[in-house]
């Protein structure tokens, strides 16, 4: 599956993590390994299972959403990552540092430098002003007053709270309070932001705004964010990848589209059945790969030949590195040949509408309704990734985005109109 994520060395690796609440976790872990269910373990050993064999990676600069209903272990999981809750067993590695082995001192430094945490009920300090709340992490690190004030002010500006520095949290609305929480997290410039149901206590409109702003912030600063939520819509909205949890275990890890299009089991399938596909499917999931492209050095005859072979009436012209240059119509090509011209310069249409990989399908429907050329899908760097034609768009929606699963068999660029 094509994702826009560059797969590199993971920022954080979690391996076989267990958390059992109770006095004798080892016995419970053994039972978990044998596949005994959470309820049965509680009944037999009085040990409550928080996490069972959880393994996943977190990549630099992604928003990883951990989703599950209450009691699924998602809050336990996020607290194990910075050891607010002590994991019973397993390994957590951030930048080659094994967190579960750290002593008190090391753990404190880790929390100060690597993490910023944002809480469901804000957890702002009521006796401190907005500014002082934002300064908190830096103060704990021992930063001097000047740096502290400046960085906190900067963070407050990022979340749009300029001018509120001297207010107290209780004077602010819920949405604004959570902005303060966000600023407190951003001010320390952490490697990883942990957001525990950060928007769940906000009313729906504010919540939507905050989601958008978070995605925007992430685009700008490329923060790695681990976001906990129980809300599927929220997960689909902001997540680059989603981890779905149930009873302390991971049910599925994948991009929003993977979760929607290839649910791992019935549980996931039931979870997602009410999702409006057009909102989540993106251009990359309904496009077809453009196998047939032309290069600037190709002669007019070659192009015509390629088009005829593929049965299409227009062809995209790209550089060697796949950067999209424009489109050439078969008709123009034919005319140019007849008039004796040999280069494509005169007939190359350069300013054509394009769309990005992450463009939601909802937006594409409107564009496609008016266009009579295929719509090229290009990456941020201008490289051609695929093409959307009306047929593939409709098929994609109808099949819930199954189209890209068989990109190699699908026909090349073709103009429907």
């Amino acid at each position: 599956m094509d994702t826009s994520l560059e797969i590199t060395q993971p920022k954080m690796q979690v391996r076989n993590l267990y958390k059992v609440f109770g006095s004798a976790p080892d016995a419970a872990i053994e039972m978990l390994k044998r596949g005994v269910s959470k309820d049965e373990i509680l009944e037999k050993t009085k040990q409550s299972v928080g996490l069972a064999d959880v393994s996943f990676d977190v990549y630099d600069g992604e928003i990883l959403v951990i989703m599950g209903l209450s009691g699924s272990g998602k809050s336990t999981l996020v607290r194990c990552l910075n050891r607010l809750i002590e994991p019973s067993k397993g390994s957590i590695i951030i930048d080659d540092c094994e967190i579960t082995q750290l002593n008190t001192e090391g753990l404190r430094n880790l929390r100060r430098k690597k993490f910023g945490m944002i809480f469901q009920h804000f957890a702002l300090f009521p006796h401190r002003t907005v500014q002082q709340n934002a300064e908190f992490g830096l103060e704990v690190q021992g930063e001097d007053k000047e740096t502290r004030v400046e960085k906190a002010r900067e963070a407050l500006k990022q979340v749009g709270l300029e001018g509120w520095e001297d207010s107290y949290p209780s004077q602010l609305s819920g949405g604004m309070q959570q902005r303060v929480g966000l600023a407190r997290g951003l001010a320390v410039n952490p490697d990883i932001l942990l957001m525990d149901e950060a928007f769940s206590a906000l009313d729906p409109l504010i919540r939507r705004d905050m989601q958008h702003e978070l995605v925007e912030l992430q685009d700008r600063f490329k923060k790695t964010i681990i976001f906990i939520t129980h809300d599927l819509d929220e997960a689909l909205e902001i997540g680059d990848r989603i981890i779905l949890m149930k009873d302390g275990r991971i049910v599925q890890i994948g991009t929003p589209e993977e979760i929607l299009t290839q649910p791992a089991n019935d549980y996931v399938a039931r979870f997602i059945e009410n999702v409006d596909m057009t909102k989540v499917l993106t251009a990359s999931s309904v496009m077809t790969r453009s196998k047939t492209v032309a290069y600037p050095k190709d002669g007019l005859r070659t192009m015509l030949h390629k088009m005829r072979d593929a049965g299409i009436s227009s062809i995209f012209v790209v550089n060697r590195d796949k950067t999209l240059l424009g489109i050439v119509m078969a008709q123009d090509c034919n005319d140019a040949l007849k008039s004796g011209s040999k280069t494509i310069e005169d007939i190359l249409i350069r300013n054509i509408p394009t769309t990005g990989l992450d463009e939601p399908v909802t937006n594409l429907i409107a564009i496609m309704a008016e266009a009579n050329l295929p719509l090229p899908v290009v990456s941020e760097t201008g490289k051609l990734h695929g093409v959307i034609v009306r047929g593939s768009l409709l098929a994609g929606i109808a099949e819930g985005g199954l189209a890209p699963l068989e990109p190699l068999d699908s026909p090349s660029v073709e103009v429907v109109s």
Partner: protein
Amino acid sequence: MNIPKFPLARYIDNILDYLTDHLAWFTKGASEIMSTAMEYAVDALLAVPSWLFILVVAAIAYKVVGKRMALGTMLGLFFLENLHLWEPTMETLVLVLIATVVAVVIGIPLGILAAIFDGAHRVIMPLLDFMQTMPAFVYLIPAIPFFGLGPVAAIFSTVIFAMPPAIRLTSLGIRQVPADLVEAADSYGCDRRQKLLKLQLPLAMPTIMAGVNQTIMLALSMVVIAAMIGAGGLGGEVWKAIQRLHPGKGFEAGIGIVIIAMILDRFTSKFGHSKTND
């Protein structure tokens, strides 16, 4: 069946005798020094003309609390002056303030310990129950061999009697800080000292001040009882009135104590609340 009486009283006496034999040189010496210091303090307060003292206290009351408090303070203190109770009033003030300061200086750290360490909590809390339910008079008896008759023995027993609320409410205030705030502080890497100074103590402050307020009130009631071992002050006046069966005099001094209590109470409860609203 004939079980012999457990000689608890004798054991306690033996322990106290042992302690007095070995510590009295020190406690008596300290007592000398302290009572001299207290005399100086009372003399210093008495050297201030009473009208000036009243005006200053009223001005502070105006600044800290408000107009009505200032007026009440002024009237109350003038009334005491008018009843010729000025000197015992000053003595009582000094006793109460010293006892309170000592109780708070010992009590708040103990309260913090009890809040942070469950072990300390389990040891300290029953001890406090013991200290509070033991009749106050009992503390007077051992104070005498250690400190001799006089104000220092009175302060000693007052401190023991008045300290529990300071400990209890400090511990309670810290334990009442919402868990999610403590978690937030932890998540940003606070060490124990930072957590205490930046979060727990500021948020516990109103409760701690309520404890200090209670300590002052208990100290005030104890210095009256402590008049029996020579504490002097307004309590001494009451004690004299009891012995000579002068109900009028007794009420005069009693009202004096009520006035002092009200002034101290309003002051300290105001300090407790001034930081919470925001």
